[in-house]
């Protein structure tokens, strides 16, 4: 198909009413869940994942990408309005966002967050669009040993760069590899680790594992917190204590709406911080495992260091809002680069989107864009216009989102839990999948409680079969000689980079340990 013809087909698909509506719905859901502390885009995507198989690929992807983009900005609404980040990605925004609100600039802070978020997001989306295809062309030239080295490098990065203790990250990744090894051997087709359960022959299905690990465990945590809150309330009532309630710290003094108007001048004054955040976020997003929270903090740090008004950071500076917001949103498109180019999801959200692609019969990898050109080009168009939908919807509905962010957990948990259960069942009409979902939920809950990062577990579960296949293929080509794995400069480069990352992570761990011991 000619490029112009392809573009026309993609445009026609991307601008159908259905795709537009599902993308808007996705953005709306994304901003709402992002604004509600405790819920996140990952959770929403995981819950909706089993349901999207009923939609066409472009509609499904439009909805999921809408949720992803919307949740990135949504997190900043409660961060700025109440000082509570709606998502982990918005944690760095609280520092200046909430103080800007208290200084009487809530509108300026919220709109700065919105514009910088959309700017970062568009830059990142364009990076994906222009980088994915050339990188995929390079990936096609890689053989099994180079791919194995790339898998090792990615797994290391995912385990080490995910927030929390790197050792726990590696532990979680190993559990993921084991779960991924259950079922058919990817080379010979013989079954293993099935414990005599026939239904395990096909391995654990992606949907119940993802939804269980991400969503059920998070809902468990929310449920536990709600139980604790309730027992504290009951205890206070028993002691006849009245709820003091109001937070005097959050009240603005001398609010003058005339001085709190967003303008082009305000946007331009934060443009440098926005661009710093956008570039930092795009780079970090493209690294497997790094994530939006790290991007937010690094963008904030860099923005502060490179700002002329660095002394204002931490006191309600709008640049301090723009940099982290641009940074976390700029991970959106970039985190899909490894997925689209190599078939390696770089983040938990990318893994979920990869799972959605697979459910639609599209296999992420170097040939994905070429083999599914009309759908993928339509997706690229949706990727760009969803950012503008985010801008428009947020402009219109900002007060509503601030109200929605106050919905109590006790009303949300039961509904979201039922959605997860029924959604997982309806994906394959399999009762066994429901048991897997609940088991994974318990496993995820226990690991989450002990601060094991769950991203490496899920990503290793997805990458495991590919890693094994490339390792065994390489060894077959090398006639069993292990040194064959290292006889390639590209592979050696990946191993060298992996070793450098391990060394850096170990240094960081020891430094952290030393600090703790000195306290």
């Amino acid at each position: 198909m000619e490029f112009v013809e392809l573009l026309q087909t993609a445009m026609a698909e991307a601008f159908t009413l259905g795709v537009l509506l599902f993308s808007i719905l996705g953005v709306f859901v994304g901003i709402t869940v992002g604004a509600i502390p405790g819920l996140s885009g990952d959770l929403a995507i995981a819950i909706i994942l089993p349901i999207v198989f009923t939609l066409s690929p472009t509609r499904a992807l439009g909805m999921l990408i809408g949720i992803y983009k919307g949740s990135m900005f949504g997190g900043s609404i409660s961060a700025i309005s109440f000082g509570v980040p709606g998502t982990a990605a918005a944690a760095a925004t609280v520092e200046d966002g909430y103080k800007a609100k208290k200084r009487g600039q809530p509108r300026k802070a919220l709109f700065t967050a919105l514009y910088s978020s959309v700017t970062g997001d568009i830059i990142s989306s364009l990076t994906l669009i222009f980088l994915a295809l050339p990188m995929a062309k390079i990936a096609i030239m890689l053989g099994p040993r180079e791919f194995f080295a790339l898998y090792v490098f990615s797994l290391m990065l995912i385990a080490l760069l995910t927030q929390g203790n790197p050792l726990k990250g590696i532990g979680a990744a190993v559990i993921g590899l084991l779960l991924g090894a259950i079922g058919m051997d990817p080379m010979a087709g013989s079954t293993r680790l099935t414990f005599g359960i026939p239904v395990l022959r096909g391995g654990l299905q992606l949907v119940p594992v993802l939804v269980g690990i991400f969503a059920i465990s998070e809902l468990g945590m929310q449920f536990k917190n709600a139980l604790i809150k309730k027992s504290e309330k009951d205890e206070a009532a028993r002691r006849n204590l009245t709820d003091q309630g109001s937070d005097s710290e959050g009240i603005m003094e001398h609010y003058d709406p005339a001085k709190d108007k967003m303008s082009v001048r305000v946007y331009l004054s934060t443009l440098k911080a926005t661009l710093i955040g956008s570039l930092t976020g795009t780079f970090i997003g493209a690294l497997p495992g790094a994530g939006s929270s790290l991007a937010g903090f690094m963008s904030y740090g860099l923005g502060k260091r490179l700002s002329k008004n660095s002394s204002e950071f931490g006191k309600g500076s709008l640049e301090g809002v723009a940099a982290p917001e641009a940074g976390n949103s700029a991970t959106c498109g970039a985190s899909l680069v490894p997925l689209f180019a190599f078939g390696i999801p770089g983040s938990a959200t990318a893994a979920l989107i990869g799972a959605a692609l697979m459910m639609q019969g599209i296999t992420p990898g170097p040939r994905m864009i070429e083999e599914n050109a009309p759908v993928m080009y339509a997706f690229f168009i949706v990727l760009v216009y969803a950012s503008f939908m985010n801008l428009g919807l947020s402009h219109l509905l900002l007060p509503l989102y601030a109200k929605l962010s106050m919905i109590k957990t006790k009303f949300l948990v039961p509904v979201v839990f039922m959605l997860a259960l029924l959604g997982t069942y309806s994906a394959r009409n399999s009762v066994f999948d429901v048991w897997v979902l609940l088991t994974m939920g318990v496993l995820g809950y226990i690991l989450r409680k002990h601060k094991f990062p769950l991203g490496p577990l899920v990503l290793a579960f997805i990458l495991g079969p590919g890693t094994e296949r490339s390792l065994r293929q390489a060894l077959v080509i090398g006639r069993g000689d292990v040194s064959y794995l290292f006889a390639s400069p590209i592979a050696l480069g990946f191993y060298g980079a992996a070793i450098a990352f391990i060394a850096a992570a170990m240094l960081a761990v020891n430094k952290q340990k030393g600090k703790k011991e000195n306290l």
Partner: protein
Amino acid sequence: MKKRSLKGYYSAERAFGIIFILLGIAGLYDTLYGDWSSGPGYGTTFFPQLTFILLILIGLIFQFYFRENKTKIIDWMDLKTIVLLICTGAVYFQLVRRLGLITSSFLYCTALIAMLTSKPAGNIRKIVIPGLIGTIIIWLLFTKLVVLILPRPLLF
């Protein structure tokens, strides 16, 4: 003196380490002596063996690295959460296939909201109305958007 029983283990991470080591040894033993079929090259067992060895190594590192965390692997509140949310979730799923979607969703939703509400007896409206709204959302989603495969009477 520090407690060393698994119930009140003085480092949850070290307990995790022990679980990893035991799991790794059991898995490795099974790959060596269990009923595994062979495959091309290094065979079917090769990758799982590597993973089990990695698991044992991580377990050993956990023993040396983590020392001071005193949290239990599972405390009373966690057990309560797992039983009240996740186990009752299984009951809810079975109920859907017997009592139908609306009835069981309403019962489950209101029961969970009641569990999380102080003085539920005095707040009946605050429990029933959200339960009803939740049920309507679920019903609309799974009968109109996603077709849940259930016998027709059970969809109501």
